[in-house]
Structures are given as structure tokens and as C-alpha cells.
């Protein structure tokens, strides 16, 4: 069965560019707005916004810029927010290492990637060296 948007939501998906440092703040503000509209609890809002902050920074600083796509998702009776952070940067050579806490690539990716995984319900990382990286996170209400 395919997932589909609920009929009552006005705007179900969108995207925003992630190219300059100020976009990290813009991204946080957008995710705050979305999680508030979806009536997430305050703690869940904070977790999602923080994860978005980490991942958007990675996209801009290490991915050499990219885009964040967002989508309101439903599965039967539950609703959630899905964010995809995509870049066409250098990619991550060693995924296991990158997802280890406190790992730094010398360019300092540190705890952002592995930490974000703990802040959300679903986490998916796809990367190809030389082509780019895509991180998808979902948080259900």
C-alpha cells in the first residue's frame, strides 16, 4: 500500500536550498514551523530541529552545498515529518566510521551525523564517494 498525504493538510511538501551558513538558521526555522503545525511535543520538536541543524550544517560545510526536501508523511493513522538532506559533494568514504560517535574526518563532522540518528525514528544514509550524499530522517508524532 502506498503512503499518501492526509486530505486536511494544505501544504504537504517543499524544499529549500542549503548553500550559505545563514541557511542553517533558516532550516531550523522552517523545521520548527513544520513540527509546530504537526503538533509535535516540545521535546520532539527540539529533537527534530536539532537533527536538521546538524544535517544542514554537514550539507553546507562538507557537502559543498545542497538542498533539503521536506514531506509530511502518513501511514494509516500516524503522521510524521520526513526530511531529506542532499548534496553533490565528496561523499563519505567510510560510513561505519562516520557513524561512530565523536568521529572527525579531519574536517570535523564529529557527533552531528551519529547524534542525529538518535534524535529521529527513521534514519537512512546514502553516499557515493565523488558523487554526493543523501540523508533521510523521519520523526513520527
Amino acid at each position: 500500500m502506498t503512503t499518501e498525504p492526509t486530505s486536511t493538510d494544505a501544504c504537504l511538501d517543499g524544499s529549500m536550498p542549503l548553500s550559505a551558513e545563514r541557511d542553517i538558521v533558516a532550516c531550523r526555522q522552517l523545521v520548527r514551523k513544520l513540527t509546530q503545525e504537526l503538533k509535535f511535543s516540545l521535546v520532539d520538536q527540539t529533537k527534530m530541529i536539532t537533527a536538521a541543524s546538524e544535517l544542514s550544517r554537514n550539507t553546507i560545510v562538507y557537502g559543498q552545498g545542497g538542498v533539503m526536501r521536506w514531506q509530511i508523511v502518513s501511514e494509516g493513522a500516524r503522521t510524521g515529518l520526513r526530511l531529506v538532506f542532499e548534496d553533490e559533494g565528496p561523499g563519505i568514504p567510510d560510513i561505519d566510521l562516520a557513524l561512530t560517535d565523536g568521529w572527525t574526518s579531519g574536517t570535523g563532522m564529529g557527533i552531528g551525523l551519529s547524534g542525529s540518528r538518535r534524535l529521529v525514528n527513521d534514519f537512512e544514509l546514502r553516499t557515493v564517494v565523488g558523487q554526493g550524499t543523501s540523508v533521510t530522517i523521519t520523526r513520527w508524532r
Partner: protein
Amino acid sequence: MKPENARFDNVLNAAPEQFLKSWLAEAALSLDNVSIAKTAPHDAQELLASLQEALRADADVTRFDDAKWSRTRTVLSELSQSRAAQGASAGETNYFVLAIKKPFFAGLRQALDANPQAAFDAVLAASALIDRMAQWTATTYQRSRENVIQRQQQELLELSTPVVKLWEGVLAAPMIGTLDSSRTQLVMETLLQRIVETGSELAIIDITGVPTVDTLVAQHLLKTVTAIRLMGADCIISGIRPQIAQTIVQLGIDLQGIVTKATLADALSLALKKGGWAVSRPVR
């Protein structure tokens, strides 16, 4: 419109009042709830409208998961959610959808009187479609019930995790029952909130009422203490029974410098001392 869609559409339009009446009568056979009976006609009409919309948009009657059936799916989801919230049984809710077969088959038989083979095929197709609708209803009903139960559990959880002020600047959170992730989460949130509200610098988490402590439970407790310390307050864990102390040592759990006391009384005594209080008893 595709011919089979047109055929179905005609059945729905031929004698709409009669159709509705027959459907509701059939559904009522399995209906105990008076308030649901009141909303049934409205529900039925909404469902019919969505069916007509889909049929006229040339939705494929063999693919109920198609995008064109999305409004019907939404209507059915909302129906099962509201019925679930009102306490209707899964059977009743399901039967409401299945009951549409009665007037539908009657209509098809009438329309295709002259062609039994075509009538048979149409009834088969209609039955399959309605079964898929009922299946969808059952699934969303299930999820709704689960949501309701979850919410009730949450409320129960909130009632059973009170945070009390023991003294000026000292809060206590007595934990009772098994410490699972959601309960610990709730206690953590409530406790932290109360710390801010009351400006208490010490929290005592009492686990006298917790039957077992394993590595997972210890992890949850450690997270709670870390959060409390991050905010600038401190924490004592009390109510450590001998068995629990043994388990902690055996499992090699590192309590990372958290102060622990056997009883809540000991913890309170320590808390008072830390706060600079001295208790005296005048000699009689």
C-alpha cells in the same frame, strides 16, 4: 468513463434513496451504538460521494491502492477512527462497509438481468472492491485503537509518576513498576520541568517500587541524571534494594559517580545536609 465504472456508477445513481435505505438497514443489523446510528446516514453519503467521484475519474476498480481512490481511503480512515474513538467494535465498523454489498449486488442484478455472465463478472468485481475497502477500514481501525490505547497508557503513566516537593529545593520522583523507555522519558520530562519551575537544585529518584534493574534501565536512569546535571541541578538515586545492588555490580554497570542511597529517608537526610539544613530535636 470505462464501461465497468459506468455500470457501477449507474447502480449508485439509479435509486439513491432506496440504495441508502437498504444499505443502512443492512448495516444496522450489526449496530448497537445509538450515537453511531445517528451519524451513519451522513457517513454513508460521504462514502457514496467519494465512490462516485473515483468512478467518474476513471479509477481502476481492481486497484484500490491507486491515487484516484485516495478520497475514499481518507473517508474510510476517518470513519474507522471516529468509530474506534466512540467504542464501536471492529466487527461493527467493518460490517458497515461490507453491508453496501446488499444494495449494490441487487442493483447490478437488476441492471444486468438479461446477461447472467456479465452480471456474475460485475458482482465478482464489485465484491472484490468492497472487500478491499473493508480491509482498509479494518487496518485503520486497528491503528486507531492502538493510538487510543497508547494515549490512555500515557495518561496512566502521567498519573503514576508524580513529582513531589520534599523540601525547599528538593524534589522526589518515586518510580513504581517496570522502567521502560516511555515511562523513563515521561519521568525525565516531568522532573526536568518541575526542577525549572520550582528552582530545585536536587532531585531524588526513588526506585523502591522498581522490581528489576538491568543494563537498559540503568541506561535510562543515567540519561535522566545526565540531563539533570546538564541543567545545573543534581540527583540522588534512592531505594536500591540489596538484590538490585548485586545486579548492578554483577552486570558491571558504571554509575558514573551518581550518589545512591538505600532508602528515601537517607537520601532526604543527605539532601538536607547538602542544602545546609540541620535538623535538631529539642531535649524534653
